[in-house]
């Protein structure tokens, strides 16, 4: 189970006396029974009865009024990923619902548990092109784990119970429940609410097969150059401790996908870095040299594997995953260890021999040395006049000491932040990994702070992505949430520019983007801010941002035409990774 099951304060019992209430009121009671403490939403015509019911419970649940439904759902994602709980989002019918689609697709591909409630027109108007009617069930089907349209209030308890169960169990994902307005206002006999823990057609996790665990252990014990790749599955399975025990007993070097960052601390001696297109040098090159590849809770995304027919062909592959459809999807598996890694990892750890792969680990460190000399040194400690993105992250590490939650947007700054951010603990890295949604970071950071109020949340955003959802500054203003916004401004859509430079003869087609005065914009929202462009100001500006009471926007002007390296060019093998 994904969540740290907090005992719900208001769980209603079946023997409780039935009461006649509206569908909307039942919905709110159910959310409370599920332990929901925060809702991100935006009202509108077709969801008004639910908002009316919510008005009576304002002391029990915190509703955050966002500025756009996309911001609402990204905030829900940030909340879910920082807290491990299900994110809850409200939107109205029609445009409200369609504005959720990007976030649903993002949550689906990144396995984020969400329950989205959308209003819908009256059931008798369905299919009549009524005002603000959109067929959200059909539109959202490919980007939800499950969805359902409620047209009768009596369906509400059972459907909501299923929604939470599907969202958080097994491989988590977003669920959308569309509720027709008539069901919201309909009175019915509410007999109480029971959580769902079983649906006959649904197997949240496959049964663990001992023989595969044994085969995997045999391969690992015989391996000379084993290599672990881990993804978000470790965190989703709350198996960080089990994972660490496996890693430490086996002595195997381990690298992470960006969704997996933080499940093993950055400075753990066996953490050899990031995989993929802009990952570290050693993990990419040595993928094609290892003899046993152990993939844990990751899905061999094309950004991780590069060219598939030249990916780890020499290696035997062990794949641990909770989702059977991931087995053999991209990379052929020698031993499929399907199951929840919280169960499978300890079984595997028990069967493996304690080892140290000192020489093999040293190979990673040798490659790291090459990467430091060719790339990292210049990025983190540049001698050039202009600031680099890397040195900003480096300074941030110094000041947060790896304790902050780093939320990133999409593009060059994302790769730099993920590569260099120091993460001491799990649930510290929140990024749009699979879908690559620009505009994700600001609203996700808002949600992340609500999900983990005791932690510092820093949103690292590019100048392009920030302008996609900057309306959410209004949400920060109104809710008073404390989010540190760090804009790395290179005055370009940097990642696209980098590709145009490298692969399109420097034909900079529409990547030159202008920005408003971000500090003034923030000021307009009552948010303190500062813009710097000089190295001598960096340290003090970051200190000011982090120590400021409340939200703060810091814009750092960085060098315009820097490229993120290393890089596995598209269509190339991971071992053809370029250092420049």
């Amino acid at each position, binding site marked *: 189970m994904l969540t740290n099951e907090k005992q719900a304060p208001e769980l209603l019992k079946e023997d409780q006396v039935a009461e006649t209430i509206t569908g909307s009121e039942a919905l709110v009671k159910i959310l409370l029974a599920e332990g929901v403490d925060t809702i991100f939403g935006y009202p509108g015509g077709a969801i008004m009865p639910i908002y009316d019911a919510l008005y009576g419970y304002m002391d029990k649940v915190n509703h955050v009024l966002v500025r756009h439904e996309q911001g609402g759902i990204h905030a829900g994602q940030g909340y879910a990923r920082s807290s491990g709980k299900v994110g809850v989002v409200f939107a109205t019918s029609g445009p409200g619902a369609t504005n959720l689609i990007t976030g649903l697709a993002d949550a689906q591909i990144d396995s984020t548990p969400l329950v989205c409630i959308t209003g819908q027109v009256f059931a008798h108007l369905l299919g009549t092109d009524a005002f603000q009617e959109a067929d959200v*069930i*059909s539109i959202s089907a*490919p980007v939800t784990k499950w969805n359902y*349209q409620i047209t009768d209030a009596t369906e509400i308890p059972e459907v909501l119970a299923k929604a939470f169960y599907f969202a958080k169990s097994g491989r988590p994902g977003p669920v959308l429940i569309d509720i027709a307005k008539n069901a919201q206002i309909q009175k019915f006999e509410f007999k109480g609410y029971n959580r769902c823990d079983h*649906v*006959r*057609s649904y197997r949240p996790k496959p049964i663990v097969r001992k023989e595969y665990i044994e085969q995997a252990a045999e391969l690992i014990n015989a391996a000379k150059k084993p290599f672990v790749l881990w993804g978000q599955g470790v965190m989703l399975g709350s198996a960080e401790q089990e994972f660490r025990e496996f890693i430490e007993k086996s002595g195997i070097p381990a690298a992470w996908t960006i969704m997996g960052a933080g499940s093993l601390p950055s400075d753990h001696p066996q953490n050899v870095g990031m995989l993929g297109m802009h990952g570290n040098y050693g993990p990419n090159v040595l993928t094609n040299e290892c003899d046993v590849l152990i993939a844990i809770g990751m899905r061999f995304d094309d950004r991780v594997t590069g060219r598939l027919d030249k990916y780890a062909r020499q290696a035997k592959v062990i794949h641990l995953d909770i989702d*059977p459809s991931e087995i*053999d999807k991209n990379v052929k598996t020698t031993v499929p260890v399907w199951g929840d890694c919280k169960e499978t990892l300890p079984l595997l750890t028990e069967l493996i021999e304690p080892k140290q792969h000192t020489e093999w680990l040293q190979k990673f460190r040798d490659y790291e040395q090459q990467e430091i000399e060719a790339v990292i040194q210049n990025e983190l400690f540049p001698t050039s006049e202009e600031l680099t993105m890397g040195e900003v992250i480096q300074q941030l590490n110094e000041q947060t000491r790896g304790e902050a939650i780093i939320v990133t947007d999409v593009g060059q700054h994302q790769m730099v932040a993920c590569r260099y951010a120091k993460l001491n603990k799990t649930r510290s890295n929140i990024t749009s990994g699979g879908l690559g949604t620009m505009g994700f970071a600001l609203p996700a950071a808002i949600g992340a702070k609500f999900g983990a109020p005791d932690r510092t949340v820093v949103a690292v955003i590019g100048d392009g992505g920030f302008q996609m959802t900057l309306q959410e500054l209004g949400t920060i203003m109104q809710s008073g949430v404390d989010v540190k916004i760090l804009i790395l401004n290179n005055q370009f859509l940097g990642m696209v520019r980098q590709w145009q430079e490298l692969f399109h003869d420097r034909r900079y087609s529409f990547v030159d983007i202008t920005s408003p005065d971000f500090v003034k914009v923030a000021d307009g929202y009552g948010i303190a801010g500062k813009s710097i462009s000089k190295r001598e100001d960096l340290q003090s500006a970051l200190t000011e941002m982090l120590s400021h009471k409340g939200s703060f926007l810091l814009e750092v002007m960085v060098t315009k035409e820097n490229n993120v390296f290393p890089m596995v060019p598209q269509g190339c093998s991971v071992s053809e990774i370029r250092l420049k």
Partner: protein
Amino acid sequence: MTNQQQQEKQEYNITVYTENTIGLLNRISTIFSRRKLNIDSLNTSPSEIEGIHRFNIVINVTEEVVRKLASQIEKQVEVLKVYYNTNDDIVWQEMALYKVPTDIIAEQALVERLLRENGARAVVIRKDYTVFETTGHREETDNLIKVLQPFGLIEFVRSARIAIIKDSEGFNRKLREFERREPGHEVIENEYLNRRDKVFTM
């Protein structure tokens, strides 16, 4: 199965057992359309167990593709079970209806022989038209079109394919087990993962 066989396209019959819910057809069909795959034939109808529906989907793809399709379909939370089989693994039929003008067919054709040769029967005989019905493989139903065309065929319709899996002993029992809260291992396991080198047969 050799690698080459896996790469060759052929007809596969996908059998899907599902809950009877609105929107599931859409969810299943987008698994194909998302990959730009055209479904050749699709039949959906109630199974022998109340509340459980059975889909029969025919598609011409490689073994590797059909396996991925099947596991994506099985991943849908309202899908109970998915199997895929080659044509050799199944017994299949399609039904066809043919409407022809009664006067022409009665005057010009040797109706009795025509019916016998094509394994067809007359479903409706009216003054103005007659409807014949036949079941069989594609060639057989196609053949009767050719035969009836000269007699002024008015309308033709063919059903989707339905198929019975040859080696499906205990199928019904397994299906019924889903009604138990904790069905046995063999029932819920993703079976083609278990026998990944073979096309699944029960």
